[in-house]
């Protein structure tokens, strides 16, 4: 909403600066997005007087003048205007001045005569569309005075972010009401000074569904969508340009002038917040206006020349023959006021918000009118606005006003809202005295009666947001100013809600992965991968990415490709985010909507060098699958402390699935298939599900699911306990086994056999080497383990170690057919 500071003064005569008004509003009423100064471009222009003027020796159209610009030196100025008069004053651009159009005025020769500046026309100053020459200033101001001090063009636009709860602020009158209430100044009663006297006494006919006079008929077939429809006739108008004051008013809020009649309707909309529309009476079939529900196949050509098809179930304005306007949105081309119009019918009606919303949506056309109707206009002001609008048209376009046709039911004020002063104090945290609360509410236009602790408040008709006690509490609080309330920290009870376990495990995993050198990312979760069962967005931003991802690795792979295309090959990314699965079936209540299954997961992707290059290792090896395996281990350790992880070999491209004792399969390690350049190394992904976010309804609307013993345990479960072992007091003994292992036998199988055969004194078993090549038969590899033994109470003898070695070799040969590597 753009508010003109000068226009505002017509409704609330005040001496506050635009900045001061903006500050008051932003502290007490509405967010101020900014203040735009108008006329700033004219700041450098001054009043100058022509003291001599003579014909230019080399031109018949030009004048050579001497100009007094207040500087003390008379300036030679060449001028091409036919209306230069010695002794008159004109706006003057000194050399160095930049014109509103961007041209800089320089000292220069015009056909041999020097010109030190320019006498300006209204067009050159951006003050008019056309002109007959330079702009004569009728002023006593001395030369050198800035023209902004002389011309009434300085103004400021207050740009307000009016939210849907305050449609009453969508007009100058509405904003003026707030300024008056906050600043404690009185408002101007109607009429406002721009209009002069609009006290009218016009013949009126009324009816609940139809009214008729002088052969003109208004009929409302759909009082639900249109509770009130008033039409007022103005005969004998002359359509033409608007007077300057009206052009200036509209210009001050960025509205273009169209014609006097149309400008008058726009003035009413922005001045009073009520959309009105003027029809050309001669173009209405049967001089009739009918408001009725739409039927199938109807359309209207709107003022902008576009054919709008009308959806069934919306509302349309018709004349005696056909649709002529989109109710509450825009008038029609066929009945438009044009230069030849002499009699107009001014429509001032009340359209119900939800119907206008439907019309606007089905027509795909949002206007200043629909914006206000959808939010709600003042239902009690229709007649007043009709008279103001008609008087204004008569003032700017001539003609006589009357008669008026009024159809519908009179406005009925809502019942009063009760405000308990004790409740006010409880919600705000401080008491507000009865006189203060009453005064604040009355300043807004409320009528208040006091009954003990309770204020009975009749809210004004233009405030459709004041329905509940708490709405009035807000009014009392904001008028006083939130900043005036205390902000001392008061005692509070600790909350009953435990930390969500997925927040805690997510944070642990993040920290672990950062420690491993990975960077967290937060990519967009939409994907092109999906099928009929994949959750998808119905109205996606990008048609090719409508699906919600089922895996974080898919997203990370695309992000890796993004980096590769920017020549970045060392990529270590991770993300903690949600993955979606197909619907989890019906909620506890079968009528409840189906939501996709949602899981919090962590995904990691590694590719490129395993370490940064160092002078001791200029080309570090690239990440391989064993690095990915280590990341999986670290993830699980951080996410599920104390639980045992098993790597289950899986089908390519998955290397392993990750399995946890009491949770089953929770993730996987994968060789990622990327679209990658030749220089890029292999990419590996690890994904782990931390847990499911429940999305079933907690309880039906209006109910809760609190346990009877309301207290919950707010502490989170401790990670599985670690039990410390005492340090050994006896020496250990170890030996290595280099075994020739056929390719089809897994190392884990060999290890399991070794562990059983080695007995309980085995302390540690480390696979420290794998070798293929010279000396190793095809289909085999050499694997070397170091075995460490320790007896808790005594030193092991060499013979005991030798015996174990022999036994191990015998067992391996017997059970697996494995022997030591030939020595």
């Amino acid at each position, binding site marked *: 909403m753009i508010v003109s500071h000068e226009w505002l003064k017509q409704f609330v005569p005040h001496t506050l600066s635009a900045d001061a008004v903006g500050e008051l509003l932003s502290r007490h009423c509405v967010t101020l997005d900014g203040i735009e100064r108008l006329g700033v471009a004219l700041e450098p222009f001054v009043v100058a007087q022509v003291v001599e003027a003579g014909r230019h020796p080399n031109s018949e159209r030009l004048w050579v003048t001497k100009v007094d610009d207040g500087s003390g030196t008379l300036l030679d100025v060449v001028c091409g205007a036919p209306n230069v008069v010695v002794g008159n004053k004109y706006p003057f651009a000194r050399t160095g001045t930049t014109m509103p159009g961007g041209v800089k005025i320089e000292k220069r020769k015009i056909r041999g005569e020097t010109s030190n500046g320019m006498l300006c026309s209204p067009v050159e100053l951006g003050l008019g569309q056309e002109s007959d020459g330079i702009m004569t200033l009728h002023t006593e101001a001395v030369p050198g005075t800035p023209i902004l001090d002389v011309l009434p063009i300085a103004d400021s636009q207050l740009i307000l972010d009016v939210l849907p709860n305050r449609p009453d602020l969508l007009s100058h009158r509405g904003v003026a009401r707030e300024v008056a209430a906050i600043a404690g100044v009185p408002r101007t009663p109607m009429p406002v000074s721009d209009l002069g006297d609009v006290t009218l006494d016009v013949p009126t006919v009324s009816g609940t569904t139809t009214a008729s006079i002088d052969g003109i008929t208004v009929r409302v077939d759909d009082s639900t969508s249109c509770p009130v429809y008033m039409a007022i006739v103005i005969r004998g108008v002359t359509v033409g340009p608007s007077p300057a004051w009206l052009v200036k008013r509209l210009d001050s809020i960025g509205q273009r002038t169209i014609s006097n009649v149309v400008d008058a309707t726009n003035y009413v909309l922005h001045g009073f917040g009520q959309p009105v529309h003027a029809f050309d009476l001669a173009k209405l079939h049967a001089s009739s206006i009918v408001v009725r529900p739409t039927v199938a196949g109807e359309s209207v050509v709107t003022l902008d020349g576009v054919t709008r098809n009308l959806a069934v179930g919306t509302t349309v304005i018709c004349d005696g023959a056909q649709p002529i306007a989109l109710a509450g949105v825009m008038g029609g081309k066929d009945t438009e006021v044009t230069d030849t119009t002499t009699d107009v019918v001014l429509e001032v009606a009340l359209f119900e918000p939800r119907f206008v919303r439907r019309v606007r949506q089905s027509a795909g056309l949002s206007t200043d009118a629909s914006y206000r109707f959808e939010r709600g206009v003042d239902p009690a002001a229709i007649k007043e606005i009709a008279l103001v609008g008609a008087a204004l048209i008569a003032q700017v376009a001539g003609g006589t006003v009357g008669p008026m046709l009024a159809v519908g039911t009179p406005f009925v004020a809502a019942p009063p809202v009760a405000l308990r002063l004790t409740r006010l104090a409880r919600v705000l945290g401080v008491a507000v005295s009865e006189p203060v609360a009453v005064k604040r509410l009355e300043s807004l236009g409320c009528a208040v009666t006091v009954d003990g602790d309770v204020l009975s408040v009749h809210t004004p008709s233009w405030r459709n947001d004041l329905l509940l006690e708490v709405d009035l509490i*807000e009014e009392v609080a904001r008028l006083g100013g939130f900043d005036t309330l205390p902000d001392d920290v008061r005692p509070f009870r600790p909350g009953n809600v435990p930390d969500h376990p997925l927040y805690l495990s997510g944070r642990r995993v993040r920290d672990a992965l950062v420690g491993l050198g990975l960077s967290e990312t937060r990519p967009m979760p939409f994907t092109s991968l999906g099928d009929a069962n994949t959750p998808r967005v119905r109205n996606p931003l990008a048609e090719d990415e409508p699906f919600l991802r089922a895996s974080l690795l898919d997203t990370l792979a695309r992000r890796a490709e993004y980096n590769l295309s920017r020549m970045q090959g060392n990529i270590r990314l991770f993300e903690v985010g949600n993955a979606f699965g197909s619907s989890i079936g019906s909620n506890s209540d079968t009528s409840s909507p189906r939501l996709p299954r949602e899981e919090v997961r962590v995904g990691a992707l590694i590719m490129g060098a395993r370490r940064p290059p160092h002078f001791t290792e200029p080309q570090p090896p690239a990440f391989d699958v064993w690095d990915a395996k280590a990341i999986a281990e670290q993830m699980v350790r951080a996410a599920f402390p104390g639980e045992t992880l098993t790597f289950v070999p899986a089908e390519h491209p998955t290397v392993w699935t990750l399995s946890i004792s009491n949770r089953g399969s929770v993730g996987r390690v994968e060789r990622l298939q990327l679209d990658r350049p030749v220089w890029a190394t292999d990419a590996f992904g690890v994904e782990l599900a931390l847990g499911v976010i429940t999305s079933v309804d907690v309880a039906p609307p209006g109910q809760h699911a609190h346990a009877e013993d309301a207290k919950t345990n707010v502490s989170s479960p401790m990670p599985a306990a670690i039990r410390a072992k005492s340090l050994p007091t006896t020496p250990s003994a170890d030996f290595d086994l280099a075994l020739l292992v056929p390719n089809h036998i897994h190392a884990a199988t060999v290890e399991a056999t070794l562990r059983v055969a080695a007995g309980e004194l085995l302390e540690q078993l480390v696979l420290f080497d794998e070798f293929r090549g010279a000396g190793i038969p095809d289909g085999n590899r050499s694997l070397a383990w170091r075995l460490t033994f320790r007896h808790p109470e005594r030193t092991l003898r060499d013979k005991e170690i030798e015996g174990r070695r022999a036994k191990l070799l015998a067992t391996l040969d017997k059970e697996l057919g494995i022997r030591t590597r030939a020595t």
Partner: protein
Amino acid sequence: MQLSEYLAQAESLAQAARALLEGLDPSTRVDVAKGALNTLKDDQLSALQGALRSLPADDRRAAGGAFNTLKNDIQNALDAFTARQAVGVGDPLFDPTMPARRTWQGSLHPVTIVIDEICDIFRELGFTIALGPEAETEFYNFGALNFPPDHPAMELHDTLYLGNDTVLRTHTSPVQVRTLQNIAPPVRVLAPGQVYRRDFFDATHAPAFMQLEGLAVDEGISFVDLKATLSEFARRFYGKSRRVRFGPSYFPFVEPGAQMDVEVDLNDGKGLRWVEILGCGMVHPHVLQAAGLDSERYTGWAFGMGPARIAMSRFDIHDIRLLYDSDVRFLEQFAR
């Protein structure tokens, strides 16, 4: 004493100091070398300083200059000795200036850094962390939060729909209702989470972004508690001297509705200015009722904020896409 004599003494002391340091074994510790040097200096240097006064006034300027040169010479000799130590004269193959063997440095996302900081502050103020689903029902996302059906307030949120009555949540506020239905007051929770809007991806908008919701509900909770807690948060997050103010605003699920502005410097050369940090207000009775609570007995306050915007101003990020594109050159700047 004559000037010529003074100058000669100064020069000889400088030579003696150089000779002393050069004569030391290269493995001598620097502090030991300093000790030896001090023994030499203590007597002679102070004697020379004292002798300045006994010189004729005309000579004092020249002598003073020589004295300062002497002091510099001694310091330079000591610096040279220390430098020889540093390059390890003992092991001629060891260059201690060569770089460390580093590991990759991991990093948290800038938005996460901000969220963690905010969560940590509110945890100190008695809040715990709640989470909720990103795919929501219209009831939890709108209806329970007092969004009137068929009302322009719905258009404040450009919604991504999954089905007829299921959406990607447009704010974290549904967690308010889920929490209140689940657990009886007192409730003090913070709900960080991803939310979705039908905004095209450009320099200032992303269709999915993080939001952070706060909720406190109990008997006797008031607007003063809201102001106190959020002002305390602002002081801890932005610094004690930052000014805070509360102005009117509108969200269907709070009444009174407010916004908190903080006076901050956005590093754009324009100095301090008021910036809206969060929206807040007293929980609307309709929200408490939708969660099955007695709105006469319980009151509460709530707030919501956008950590991505805060991260952008805190870290001087001018294009929001940098936060989501995952360019490693961007992310690695946040390594700790």
